[in-house]
């Protein structure tokens, strides 16, 4: 699938066209991406999102006959984004503030799981395992956070976060290691690792599991995080879904991501391998080392997401959440829509967080649109975004070829 195609028996493609796309289109997905990015800048992602929302609105119109605009308006209000408008006041403003806190709470892990996808993407890999890495991170965070109750709060929080990041790195590192050593495709191994993580979580926190709640043995839930290990909540109710400082950690991660990729040797190597592993190897860059490191760093981001969710507002894990959680998968759409850039990921994380929160059962006004329907609408929009991103790379590449008749930059 990857490395092994160079063996003596490999007779996959003629050498002058290793990709099968033709000489004008880049070999790797990462390279095709950058072509699209340079071609149309910010226009393409906005167009993608608008198109997805249009189709989603069409679905609303056709199936329920309701006005898509009022539906989207209700979702917008449910997300609390109207808090940003200065003319919203009184009770409405209080509700909006509560909703907006929740949106930012969802945005926090979305940024990080999206970075987990993006970083691997820049190295030419598709990390579909953000969900598993997120879960493993949250398992360790809840384990450390709910034990060691005598510890100094600062030490406790930092310890829990660091362990969760390492756990995520190790979980993703398995896939990176397999890719680097035996050439196992990272998509397959990360899908499998996702499911292993889910079932291990079901085992750990399920009835009779080793980390199941000590006080109530009949509920499949973990112990609560001790007060000392909780993140500081600076806006809203500290006990119930107030906004913790986790959002700043996530924003800082965006900066770290940008710095690693654009200002370090490691980032240079990762991007070089992502563009063209052959050329990178020829230039003296260790491809397998970068595969492993890129996956491990990806997993670090996802593990951090799990820790911030647990220590910031969830404070425990129930087995029902483990199966239902979609944060890692939404992260894929966020990363793709954000074009794997730091700014793009931040903005599209806000968009998807608003969408997820605005369509939740609690926040969407049921008299306007049924929330159970709307949450599936989110999935539809998410799928459309991924589909269009996959296709618009091609559309844009074609456009570029017709316009300039020049080979794509390598």
């Amino acid at each position, binding site marked *: 699938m990857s490395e092994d195609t160079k063996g003596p*028996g490999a007779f996959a493609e003629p050498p002058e066209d290793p990709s*099968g796309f033709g000489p004008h289109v880049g070999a790797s997905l990462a390279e095709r991406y950058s072509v699209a990015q340079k071609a149309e800048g910010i226009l393409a992602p906005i167009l993608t999102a608008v198109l997805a929302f249009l189709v989603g609105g069409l679905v609303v119109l056709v199936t329920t006959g309701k006005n898509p605009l009022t539906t989207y308006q209700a979702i917008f209000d449910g997300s609390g984004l109207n808090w940003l408008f200065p003319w919203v006041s009184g009770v409405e403003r209080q509700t909006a503030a509560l909703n907006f806190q929740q949106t930012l709470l969802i945005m926090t892990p979305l940024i990080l799981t999206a970075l987990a996808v993006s970083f691997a993407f820049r190295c030419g890999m598709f990390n579909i395992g953000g969900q598993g890495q997120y879960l493993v991170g949250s398992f360790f965070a809840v384990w450390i956070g709910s034990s060691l109750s005598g510890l100094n709060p600062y030490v406790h929080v930092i310890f829990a976060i660091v362990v969760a990041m390492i756990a995520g790195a190790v979980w993703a590192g*398995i896939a990176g290691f397999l890719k680097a050593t035996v050439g196992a495709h990272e998509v397959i191994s990360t899908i499998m690792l996702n499911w*292993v993580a889910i079932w291990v979580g079901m085992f750990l926190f*399920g009835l009779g599991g080793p980390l199941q709640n000590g006080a109530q043995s009949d509920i499949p839930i973990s112990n609560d995080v001790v007060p000392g290990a909780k993140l500081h909540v600076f806006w809203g109710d500290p006990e119930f879904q107030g906004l913790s400082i986790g959002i700043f950690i996530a924003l800082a991660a965006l900066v770290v991501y940008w710095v690693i990729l654009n200002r370090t040797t490691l980032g240079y190597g990762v991007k070089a391998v992502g563009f063209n592993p052959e050329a990178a190897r020829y230039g003296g860059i260790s491809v397998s080392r970068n595969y492993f490191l890129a996956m491990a760093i990806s997993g670090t981001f996802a593990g951090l997401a799990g820790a911030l969710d647990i220590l910031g507002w969830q404070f425990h894990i129930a087995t029902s959440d483990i*199966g239902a959680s979609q944060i890692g998968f939404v992260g894929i759409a966020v990363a793709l829509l954000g074009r794997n850039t730091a700014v793009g990921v931040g903005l599209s994380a806000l968009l998807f967080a608003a969408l997820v929160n605005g369509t939740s059962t609690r926040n969407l006004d049921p008299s306007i649109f049924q929330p159970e329907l709307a949450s599936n609408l989110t999935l*539809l929009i998410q799928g459309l975004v991924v589909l269009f991103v*996959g296709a618009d790379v091609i559309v844009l590449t074609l456009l570029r070829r017709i316009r300039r008749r020049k080979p794509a930059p390598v």
Partner: protein
Amino acid sequence: MSSVNASGAAPKAPTEVARQLPHGFRIVAWIGIVLGIVGAWLCLPPITERSWVWSLVVCLVAVMLGIGVVIRGERRFGGFAIASGAIGFAVAYLATLSSTGKLETVVVWSALFAATLRYATPLIFAAIGGMFSERSGVVNIGLEGMMLMGAFFAVLADDKTDSWIIGLAVGILSGGVAALVYAFFAIHLRADQILGGTAINFLCLGLTGYLYIDIYGTEGTASNTIQAIPDIHLSFLDGVPFLGPIFAQVNLMIWLALLLVVVSSIVMFRTPIGLRIRSVGEHPRAADTVGINVYAIRYSAVTLSGMLAAAGGAYLSIGFVNSFGENMTAGRGFIALAALIFGNWRPYGAAAACLLFGFSSALANRLPEYSDSASVLFQALPYVLTLIAVAGVIGRSTPPAADGRPYKKQ
């Protein structure tokens, strides 16, 4: 013409040679695998030997045969024999620790095998479907979504028309439509196949969930209005011990799944059509130059894969549980993908892997007799086994050479 070509088809030097040379060793390896199973069986009902010594002897022979075969170059099957011996002894040892009464309630072979068939059937349909797609060079990680389409639309049509035939047909068609959409993006637009498949999974999950809530509301489908796919009653097997309880009363779809394995193997390896599919998957340009229409073959293979996956989904909803629930496939499409890889992209191999995974599900359902949490952990087994398989510990799984590469006509 066909037979000559079928045997001398793909000139993939190392793997193909390895497959042909040590045929005698493979028989030895099979003996090892069987011995491992016998070793476990000794300590289980109906013999229920209370000492593990005999089992140890038998399993050691299995492991030694396996090692011998591995040394002589047949790594894959030798590895299976070693694993069979090791797992066999572990099972036997655990069984001697348990009381006879408990063993006899848990290990009822006929019931276990009957459940294995029920669990394996949807997997077999999807895995064989995936095989057609991947053998033609299109990776299909959208199997999960296509299964879900089949499951939902089968229930919908069945419920509206009161006919399981129409239900099944509509279910299969819906999977075909989803696959066609995917094929258009993957083949014509040459979108990245992993992205496209991920998008299809999101879209199908959102679409089925949306329509389900829209049509049936949050209460769900009433199972008494569903015309289930009938069982086939073989009266001559009625009184037969062991075989009777397994095969006398079996759902039509289970027989169809077993038939499908045989037919697809013949089609894939003994007919010109199969040869064309494989040549397109191994080297599309070469296939193109001898006049094979690469796009047509790929379109039909992908559509067929969607239809088969949907048939598996339809069995789940109108053959097995008689209702639909949001995301009811719950990762079975990914298990099917895993089985396909585990079975090395071959029909019998994939079906054997499906049966193995089905058996582990069937056993997991009975393990709560011992421990709830252990039976949960058991569910992770298929994924762990697949990870080990892709890691190349038990021989390397080799995908078709052009799997995942879009083809551009020159």
